[in-house]
């Protein structure tokens, strides 16, 4: 979540690329940024998204 510099409003609603959970500043240390700059809330979400993409390609 990106708040304005005065803290009074939200400038950007930041969500995990995989699970869609809101990411506050306090959540950042646990987050993982992928090589193409996508933000994930955890390594679990990085792995899950990759596995899903692979499975869907196989099933296509």
């Amino acid at each position, binding site marked *: 979540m990106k708040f304005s510099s005065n803290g009074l409003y*939200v400038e950007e*609603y930041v*969500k995990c*690329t995989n*699970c*869609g959970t809101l990411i506050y500043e*306090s959540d950042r240390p646990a987050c993982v940024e992928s090589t193409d700059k996508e933000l994930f809330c955890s390594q679990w979400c990085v792995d*899950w998204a990759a596995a*899903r993409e692979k499975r869907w390609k196989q099933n296509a």
Partner: protein
Amino acid sequence: MDPVMMKILDSTMVSVCREMGITLMQTSYSTIFNEALDFTCAIANRDGDMIACAEFCPAQIGGMPLMAKSMVKEMPLDQFDEGDIVLHNDPYRGGLHTPEHTFFKPIFVNGEIRGFAVSIGHIAEVGGMVPGGFCGEATEIFHEGLRVPPVKIVSKGVHNKDIWRLLLANVRTPRYNYGDLRALISAVDLGERRMKEIYSKYGADVVDQTCNDLMDYSERRMRAEISQIPDGIYPFEDLVEDDGIEDRPYKISVEVHKTGDDIVADFSGSAKQAKGPINATLGVTLSATYNALLHMTDPSIPKNSGCFRPIRVVAPAGTIVNVNYPAPEVGGNTETHPRIAGTVIGALANVIPHLAMAAEGATHGNFVFGGVHAATKEFFACYDIEVVGWGGRSFADGNDACDSINGNCRVTPVEVFEVRYPWRVEDWVFREDSAGAGKFRSGVGYTKTLTCLNDEIIISQMTDRHKVAPWGLNGGLPGDKGATLFMLSGANEWLDASQAYGKISPSKYSNISIRKGDRVRLVMPAGGGFGDPKERDRESLREDVVEGYVSAKAAQDIYGL
């Protein structure tokens, strides 16, 4: 772990939550609270985990922890004082939809926060584009009423009058809103007082440790239940029929992954978010997934955040299951929630059909209206919940005319409805042959016909199931759909909102002017049947015919009597 202490504390805290709910019921002003019971009450720990709740509205129970956690992130614990109360309804900060107002009161013991008393309730009138909150044609969150990020409406026991003035200036029924909001505050006041008594009786460390044990216990019980399900990936899809803006269906797609004692519900295949108000927030999708799994597991497991630990939800942003700001979302919490829960149940029905239910009507009707009452000259607004037939199960028929699985609400009695609002209820009738046929049939739907007694009532609706029938299971047949029909004063035919008023959707529309003598007929859907209708117990079928639930012709043609 002391199991005796755990049981005593669990039962005591659930009783506290029930007492909070009774306070709400007895002190609120609007029928959506004191008759329909569209609220719930809970106790959370200092991290925002729910440790106890009462059995009121399931949609709110599953959604509460995310609201609590976002509140704690924006308002750290060291910023709280004893006597503070926080108000929060923001759908884009963990909330469910704008009407769902949530109050948190910190529970201080010896100067330290130990948890929160929480009350959450559906405020009938929230400002925005239509009286009654459900704007079927909304295209932005701003059409859906006032968003309230976490704010201290009470600081150190003193009400913040500036916030009250701001809130009450933005709604059509300030007197009622004030009454309902104060009722929610009374509930958290009571919850805080009772929890302090509990802390005083048993000691803070014992209570906190026991609450942690309790959540661990619920987690173990839930994991044991999940372990019984065969490992695998189970897909299912269902549709929301339209969004009020474009005449096309929106897919909800789930893959339920069961591995060991974990479940992941991945909704990545779902439709992109809609322009209209059918979108669900992440809180709704979490809540719907929890709701489905709580329906399919042992009901005696204590309901707290421990139950949710084995369950992960993947709901990509920008889809119908995790809407991005600033799209509208009011119907996500009522209409899309039961669709989402239904897809999880439908997916698991592949492997645990004995615990599954065929589709239910899965709408709350969401018939909302307002106007100036001729008798009182005061503006009134109402959120009227209507109910549906539930799906058949492997061991029983579906419930007749019962609120959709995320609501657990009641229908306002006719006598109260007619006293409070200028409508006359002409009839309220179970519909013959509406139930999805099956070895176990669904519950039946019904019709309710209202005549307008006021010079004008402005109505809106945000419902579904007028085009897509509820599905059956294991050879059970689909149930009948719903409809909303209008007969203007002096006319002699029933028309839907598209025919009568040129609306894109017959189920989602805004601000139709109903005049004195006009009639509105709410036709509520049934659910799907379970199992082959020809296997239905003959005595039960004869009883259905005698009761007028099944016609003699259908008994012969469909059930093979």
